[in-house]
């Protein structure tokens, strides 16, 4: 009985962790092919961890409240970008600039998050596709504001930000003056590996916040709403409001995350930085073994490491195998989408697998009765 259960355990472990295991294999295969040195790889991964983890953590709370993968985190990213545009226009540099941008992003994020949450409440049961379309819709509004209203209606004056035509923001806004200001403070450098200690501290604080948040009344309500909206409503929990709050928190965190991300990158690609960020964060989270209805901080860390290792080594490895560097580029894009597709399929099939078990049980019962 015992050794059998070990085999069964192994099997169920593999089944529950298909995606991470697949990624470990891909990475194990690609790393030697890419020929990168260990310290280079480590440095890259640590940089990307500092850059991305905060953003990905923003996804956890909507998952907790049963709203699935928040493709609407793009909205938070937009809020962060708008805040950063203002800050660069005012020429606030360095860490004060980052702090100011974060404070500035809060009202914008809250506004966008409330909007998103309200719409998602109208589309219960298909939150994901709706939040996905919301991100496109808001992208249009974002363009309207940034490309046409900034400089003409909203005061923007600095030449390094504004387009020469008099309104609109440049394609790229340089953040040279706050580039890696947080990463570099307290950073430790050894053997060509830079560890951005302050960034990790901030991430640590956020992790603590999430752990703490789960133990609050609101966190408990969100978990209840996430598992069964009707029961939660019957118990007197304001379901709609709880869901909106969860999206608002996610949006605000995504805004902060985007600011941290961009201070590391050192410039804003005004019209495209945010457009793919949701997709990459979601892919990374899923690679870490999360699913549409369950995700932990551990998934986030594992996901970032595996996903970005793949991201770094794939182009080089692809070039090694096929002689064409574009193959690897396309491969990693394919894998990102593939992972999300796979996770969505697994989630949906799991939802309906539980059915038809009762029938088998009845049949068994009757057979037992017949045998008596």
């Amino acid at each position, binding site marked *: 009985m015992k050794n059998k259960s070990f085999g069964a355990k192994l099997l169920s472990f593999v089944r529950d962790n298909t995606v991470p295991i697949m990624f470990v294999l891909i990475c194990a295969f690609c790393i030697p092919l890419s020929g990168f040195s260990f310290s280079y790889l480590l440095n890259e991964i640590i940089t990307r961890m500092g850059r991305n983890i905060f953003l990905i953590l923003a996804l956890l709370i909507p998952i907790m409240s049963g709203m699935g993968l928040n493709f609407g985190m793009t909205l938070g990213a937009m809020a962060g970008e708008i805040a950063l545009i203002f800050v660069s226009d005012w*020429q606030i540099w*360095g860490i004060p600039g980052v702090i100011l941008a974060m*404070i500035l992003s809060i009202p914008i994020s809250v506004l966008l998050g409330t909007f998103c949450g309200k719409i998602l409440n109208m589309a219960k049961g298909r939150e994901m596709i709706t939040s996905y379309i919301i991100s496109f819709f808001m992208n249009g509004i974002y363009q309207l504001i940034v490309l046409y209203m900034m400089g003409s209606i909203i005061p923007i004056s600095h030449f390094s930000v504004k387009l020469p035509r008099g309104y609109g923001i440049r394609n790229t806004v340089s953040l040279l*003056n706050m580039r890696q200001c947080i990463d570099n403070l307290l950073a430790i450098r050894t053997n060509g590996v830079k560890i951005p200690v302050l960034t990790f501290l901030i991430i640590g604080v956020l992790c603590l916040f999430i752990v703490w948040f789960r133990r609050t009344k609101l966190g408990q309500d969100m978990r209840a709403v996430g598992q069964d909206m009707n029961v939660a409503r019957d118990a007197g929990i304001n379901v709609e409001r709880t869901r909106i709050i969860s999206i608002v928190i996610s949006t605000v965190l995504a805004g902060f995350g985007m600011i941290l991300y961009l201070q590391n990158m050192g410039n804003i690609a005004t019209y*495209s930085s945010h457009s793919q960020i949701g997709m990459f964060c979601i892919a990374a989270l899923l690679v870490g073994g999360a699913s549409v209805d369950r995700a932990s901080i551990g998934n986030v860390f594992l996901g970032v490491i595996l996903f970005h290792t793949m991201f770094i080594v794939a182009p080089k490895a692809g070039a090694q195998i096929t002689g064409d560097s574009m193959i690897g580029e396309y491969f990693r894009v394919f894998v990102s989408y593939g992972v999300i597709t796979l996770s969505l399929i697994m989630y949906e099939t799991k939802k309906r697998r539980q059915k038809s078990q009762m029938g088998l049980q009845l049949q068994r019962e009757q057979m037992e009765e017949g045998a008596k």
Partner: protein
Amino acid sequence: MSNKTRRILFCTGAVLLLVLIAGLMFIVGRGHTVYLDNKTLEYNGQTYSAMHKIEVVQNGKTLTKLNKRERGMATNIGQNFKITLIVTKEKKGAEETREIQLKLPYSMDGIIINLPAYLAGLPQEAYLSEFISAAEQEPEPEEALPTEDEFGISTDMDSTPQG
């Protein structure tokens, strides 16, 4: 009800605190680019000639060494501009270390400071002037707007910020 007023109090307190921090950051974080000139300047009929060499040190790091008629650049966050100058007045003359500290005007992005004039103790309007960037005056050729495909949705996957 007192619970509610208490909450409102705390809430406004928190908002005020954030606004306060934002305001503080707004002042503290203002960045300036300071251009340091080692150039001869005429002021009120007097000539203040350039030094032979000035070494500019900021936060213990040497930023630049200026020979005659040269311009150096320093960046500064906030309005307190503090540098150390190691001045050699004439060729083979003695080195003289001067700590200087001056208030930068908030509204200026780029500031030119004429060091000989400053070292001579002239008033502010003499040594300090605003730097107007060339880029700001001549409009650049229109930047390419975001590329759109037939349907108006950007498909530039390759320009993902991840790279």
